[in-house]
């Protein structure tokens, strides 16, 4: 599992780890039932404290991305996210606001943005296919 942490970003490390695991799952690089590195292993790999990794895993578990099995380790869950619709919308709204700010600043209109989004989504899917 490849994770890159950025110091130039004030986002807490546990959040950076959680976000990147989510990205790896969404893009198919981590598959359902796949085991994640142990808390201690990932802490050493990334040179961050085990508490940070444990917190990232807890966060991912509460969002339904991973399941931790006592004594066995932490695994990617089956793909069904138990988040409520309201919560899902809240997370996406935040991202969309950032995207809209950026695109308006760049002078890209809504129509073009939607087209780009669709193209990107297709690319994402074909990448996922290619992995298999």
């Amino acid at each position, binding site marked *: 599992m490849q994770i890159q*942490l950025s*110091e*130039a*970003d*004030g*986002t*807490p*490390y*546990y959040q950076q780890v959680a976000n990147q695991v989510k990205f790896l799952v969404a893009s198919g690089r981590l598959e359902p039932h796949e085991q994640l590195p142990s808390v*201690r292993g990932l*802490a*050493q790999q990334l*040179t*961050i*404290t*085990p*508490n*940070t990794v444990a*917190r990232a895993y807890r966060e991912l578990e509460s969002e339904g991305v991973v399941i931790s099995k006592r004594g066995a380790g932490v695994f990617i869950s089956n793909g069904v996210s138990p988040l409520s619709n309201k919560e899902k919308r809240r997370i996406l709204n935040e991202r969309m606001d950032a995207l809209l*700010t950026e695109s308006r600043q760049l002078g890209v209109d809504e129509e073009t943005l939607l087209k780009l989004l669709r193209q990107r989504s297709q690319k994402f899917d074909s990448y996922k296919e290619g992995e298999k």
Partner: protein
Amino acid sequence: MTENVIEIENLSRRFGTKQALSDVSLSVPEGCVFGLVGENGAGKTTLLRHVLGFLKPQQGMVRVFGTDPVADPAGVLGRIGHLSENRDLPTWMSIHELFEFTRAFYPKWDPVYAEELRIMFELSPQQKVTTLSRGQLARAGLLLALAHRPPLLVLDEPSSGLDPVVRKDILDAIIRTVVDEGRTVLFSSHLLDEVQRVSDRIAILDQGRILLSSPLDEVLVSHYQLTVRFQEPQPFFPQLTGALLSTGSGREWIILCNGQKQTLEKELQDMNGEILEQNAPTLEEIFVARMKSVERNTAE
């Protein structure tokens, strides 16, 4: 509840007329990496020397593993791996002699682990301490601090003046120490990106006082940076609730703020100011803003 490995209450220390520490209280829980930051002369080394029992509190109390380090130096120091700021190692010894010498003080010295570290740090047993480079000296000091597998590691500016390769060794050693059976690390540093990377908790010392002491995540989340645009150019940045530091001119300003977001947003609205962007500042940016804000308040 995990126990606190270090407990400091209302510690004050004066050297002549200089108040080195005033009313410092902090606790370091077991299994935690605690980063101590502050400018030169803020009192970091003095604080660490109290933890090691090299200085006796003039006021207040210091407990390490529940014991007074001044009353029981052997009991406390035997359980601490310590790297001092100036790496004062006996220069006339060879690396091998240095190991044997240090080993005599620590019943728990692990010769296999020491040898493993020696090979990893590429230190030759015959080499004399005088001939070691700065980086090698730091590695030798770190090895001595680690080889008796202490439950507590105290490092004073472990990576200052070192190249990135040795700094990485030191950070790895810190992480290995906590990963290894929940040991505890207290370290001071100027390099805030490193502190941000490896710490669970941090404290900022300023002129002998604790300015802030809290879990690192809370520090990062409670501070935010805003880019603000006013309808009219502003000659100075207005006083706003929670704003620590502002840079900019005319209509656009960047401010670093702490908490009280709703109040600040309301104040901005009243002044026809609009928030263009919000970012998460790094620990370094937060530290600078905090220090500047203190300076400003003292000057006023």
